[in-house]
């Protein structure tokens, strides 16, 4: 119950939610008390005041036997609401069990449920209402039944989706494995996770039911005189609209307000519920405004003829009270034909770095750099008049199932690059496409042009993505976790392909990955990122001898590879990666570092070159020696 109260409280925080809730409560109160207060006034005929227009005594006028219309509008609230609730009860009463059937009884009954739902959906509510009105006589019973049956399919569909997702979830599976009784699983695990969305839908459904019922009553098929709901009142006043429009005003306003209130409340509750069960860690309210970019000057490796030079790259996102910077002033360069990996865990900023190079950071993120040069062109201010990014930078993304357009054939997605940027005609572009597909070792390249992405496996789609990048003449291939979603044997093929393409075309490669072993296999140089900063820049061949940054060392010691000593415990890093909204001053790794001193916690270390001029590390106390995991969790080494 605490959860439900919290839900309402969250919904109340928005102005629409609060307004809707208040209105709904008001309507309910009105439904209860209005007949008691104004009941007489609403039903007492008054022959002296027939068919009057608005006046002080009767603000909305009177009807054909002199009854006060304002009173009648207020009193009609009860019948309108009660019938609407009944409609939703009928609809949910039929729909929810129907939707739950496939989950409880198995997949065969899904077909039955689908058939019944289809049938109910096939006939509009109005036709059902007509049918039932003929059989049962026009009146509220027929209306409630008809509208209830008509609303059942929506409930059935919702319940079926919810039940299927809940039933397929691991916590329900775990409950079964624990041997909990079916009853317990149903009531403790399944129903609570289904009930909330359904209840929210009930609120919205009451709104729609009310509107539909008013419509039926308006037609004369719903509430019959002498009973009256808003729809019935409206139809009675319609033929006087030229003379006394205020008569229609009451029911119109009442219908609209009630509809808006219930729908608004339902939507506010739904929005509140979705934020509560999501696992995204949102920045805590009230955190200090974002700490300004540290004015650190990093060293830069000297390379002649670099393909890419980046200095002080920062990506910022505005938040409610300030901004966060997932990438904070990084500097690196990529030489001609060099292969560089950026290694980091989630939240390190590695993906955003790749996206910012290709100018693909989504709004509202902003990219700033002190210097950004690609193939000799200055892109620091973000403009790219010669379109070097489009022609010389190839992007390969992680999720192959969503990165290719499912509605277009492979051929189109390949040849359009050459047509737009290379000015080639369709046939020439297609020829080049076949050529590139052959280059990425895809069997049957001509056949592939006509296929759609879903007809290919994940590995094949990734080859297509690489081929797309090769349609221009790329000088730099940026691959963001290109193999994380693939099997390890396919991963090997793709990585080998990228390597060979780099060798053949002379293109440089920037590989983003969380797997440091993949980085060492594929690349010459590794940049380790932590909390938006580069903490180490080291030759891949020297990784084995021992990196010097405590984070890199801990990372190497924490993940087993094929040669890890099986008798020795793995190192682990206490704590967890920091939230970009909640960064400590000083070195971001200090809270988890075994060698942190006060200086680390106060001053953030810059990325500095060491004596060899090819190794950079951002640490006040870099550690020496090769990485060996000892019996306790700490890494032993000489204090640097």
């Amino acid at each position, binding site marked *: 119950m605490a959860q439900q109260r919290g839900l309402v409280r969250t919904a109340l925080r928005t102005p629409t939610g609060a307004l809707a809730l208040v209105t709904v409560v008001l309507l309910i109160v009105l439904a209860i008390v209005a007949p008691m207060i104004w009941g007489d006034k609403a039903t007492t005929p008054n022959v002296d005041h027939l068919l009057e227009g608005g006046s002080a005594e009767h603000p909305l006028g009177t009807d054909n036997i002199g009854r006060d219309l304002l009173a009648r509008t207020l009193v009609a609230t009860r019948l309108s609401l009660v019938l609407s609730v009944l409609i939703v009860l009928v609809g949910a009463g039929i729909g929810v069990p129907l939707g739950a059937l496939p989950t409880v009884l198995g997949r065969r009954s899904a077909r039955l449920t689908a058939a019944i739902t289809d049938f109910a959906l096939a006939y*509009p*509510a109005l*036709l059902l209402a007509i049918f039932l009105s003929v059989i049962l006589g026009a009146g509220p019973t027929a209306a409630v039944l008809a509208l209830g049956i008509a609303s059942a399919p929506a409930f059935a569909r919702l319940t079926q989706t919810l039940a299927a997702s809940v039933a397929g979830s691991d916590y329900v599976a775990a409950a079964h494995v624990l041997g909990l009784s079916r009853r317990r699983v149903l009531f403790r695990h399944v129903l609570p996770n289904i009930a909330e969305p359904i209840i929210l839908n009930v609120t919205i459904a009451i709104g729609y039911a009310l*509107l539909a019922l008013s419509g039926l009553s*308006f037609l004369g098929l719903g509430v019959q005189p002498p009973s009256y709901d808003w729809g019935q009142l*409206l139809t009675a006043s319609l033929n006087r*609209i*030229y003379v006394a429009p205020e008569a229609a005003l009451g029911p119109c306003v009442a219908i609209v307000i009630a509809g808006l209130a219930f729908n608004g409340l339902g939507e506010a509750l739904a929005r509140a519920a979705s934020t509560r069960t999501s696992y995204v860690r949102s920045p805590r309210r009230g955190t200090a405004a974002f700490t300004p970019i540290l004015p650190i000057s990093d060293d830069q490796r000297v390379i002649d003829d670099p393909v890419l030079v980046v200095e002080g790259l920062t990506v910022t996102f505005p938040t409610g009270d300030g901004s966060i910077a997932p990438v904070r002033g990084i500097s690196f360069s990529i030489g001609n034909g060099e292969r560089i990996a950026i290694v980091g865990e989630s939240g390190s900023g590695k993906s955003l770095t790749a996206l910012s190079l290709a100018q*693909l950071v989504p709004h509202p993120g902003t990219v700033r750099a002190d210097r950004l040069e690609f193939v000799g062109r200055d892109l620091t201010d973000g403009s790219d008049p010669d379109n070097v990014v489009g022609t010389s930078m190839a992007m390969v993304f992680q999720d192959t199932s969503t*990165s290719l357009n499912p509605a277009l054939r492979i051929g189109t997605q390949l040849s359009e690059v050459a047509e737009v940027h290379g000015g080639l005609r369709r046939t020439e572009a297609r020829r080049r496409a076949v050529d590139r597909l052959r280059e990425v070792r895809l069997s049957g390249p001509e056949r592939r042009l006509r296929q759609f992405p879903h007809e290919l496996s994940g590995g094949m789609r990734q080859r297509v993505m690489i081929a797309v990048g090769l349609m221009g003449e790329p000088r730099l291939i940026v691959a963001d976790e290109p193999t994380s979603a693939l099997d390890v044997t396919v991963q090997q093929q793709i990585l080998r392909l990228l390597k060979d393409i780099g060798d053949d075309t002379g293109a440089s490669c920037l590989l983003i990955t969380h797997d440091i072993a993949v980085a060492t296999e594929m690349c010459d140089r590794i940049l380790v990122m932590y909390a938006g900063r580069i903490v180490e820049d080291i030759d891949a061949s020297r990784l084995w001898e021992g990196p010097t940054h405590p984070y890199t060392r801990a990372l190497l010691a924490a993940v087993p590879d094929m040669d890890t000593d099986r008798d020795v415990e793995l190192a682990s890093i206490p704590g967890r990666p920091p939230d970009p909204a909640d960064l400590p001053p000083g070195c971001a790794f200090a809270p988890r570092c075994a060698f942190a001193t006060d200086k680390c916690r106060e001053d953030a270390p810059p990325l500095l070159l060491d004596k060899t001029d090819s190794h950079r590390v951002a640490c006040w106390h870099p550690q020496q020696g090769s990485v060996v995991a000892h019996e306790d969790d700490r890494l032993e080494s000489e204090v640097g």
Partner: protein
Amino acid sequence: MVSLAAPARVGFADKHPTAAFVLRRTGRMIILLLLLLVLSFAMIHLVPGDPVRAELGPRAPVSAIEARRAELGLDQPIPKQFVDYVRGLLTGDLGTSTTSHLPVSEVIAERLPNSAKLAGIAFVVIMLFSLSIGMIAAIVTRNGRHSGTELGFTTTTGFFATVPEFVLGVALVYVFGVELKWFPVAYEPGVAAYVLPVAALSIGSIAALSRIVRVETLDVLGADYMRTARSKRLPARLMYLRHALPNMLTSTLTLGGLLLSGLIGGTVLVENVFAWPGLGTAVVDSVVAQDYALAQAIMVLLGATVLIINLVVDVIIGLIDPRSTIREL
């Protein structure tokens, strides 16, 4: 030894998936249509009381009642009555309307064009406006841009989507018919008479549908493949027309199908507000007046229309979307 238990024979469904799909859906529709006919047939027989007696009055002699019964074929066994009924439907003999004493088919023929024109014009108006407003709203507010516009859009559409057509119709009648007198509020020949009823039918649906279109468009615009298209530096025209639009086709068609079916209910309501001489007013009047032959015929007509529309939309979607035939149940 065999690891894959392949289906014993490759059947028709595998060789011609599209044809099988169309046949399956058509079969489903025919079943539902039959059900509709059974229900509408049963409707008469489930009416409490005796329709013949109701028609002829309480003082009619038994002989007259029996004669009328034989005339209507009500003395035959039920299955034969059903067959006669269906045969009658197929040949256009729908019985006689008890209120107007005209053949039902004539009444329908007279009224159908008015309703069809109203619904048809409203459909086109709704689709044009909701698609364009929804897509433009999505492009303007993508990635959280212009949150003020988004708020205005959501509030306005939220409001108008909740106002029912008949309430809107009444309001329009008052504002434009009574006060401003710009447009006629009842049927008369000429285009002007259509303005208010079409507006009443359309505004709510435009509001509701443009919200949905906006959400769908935002989903498509935010998809990974759009990011890939952006990384290719394609011109905006290609990005929206070639990459985004085809992915919206399925949802747009589904929307269109739902709209057409939903317009039927709306048309009935709006016709009753504007006293429009169409099927909407006819069906309500016939139920109230217990003119069951007319009510039954209109019900079958409307129901069959909905079924056929759903079938056509399903088939078109199935043909266009390369993945849907594979996903078919």
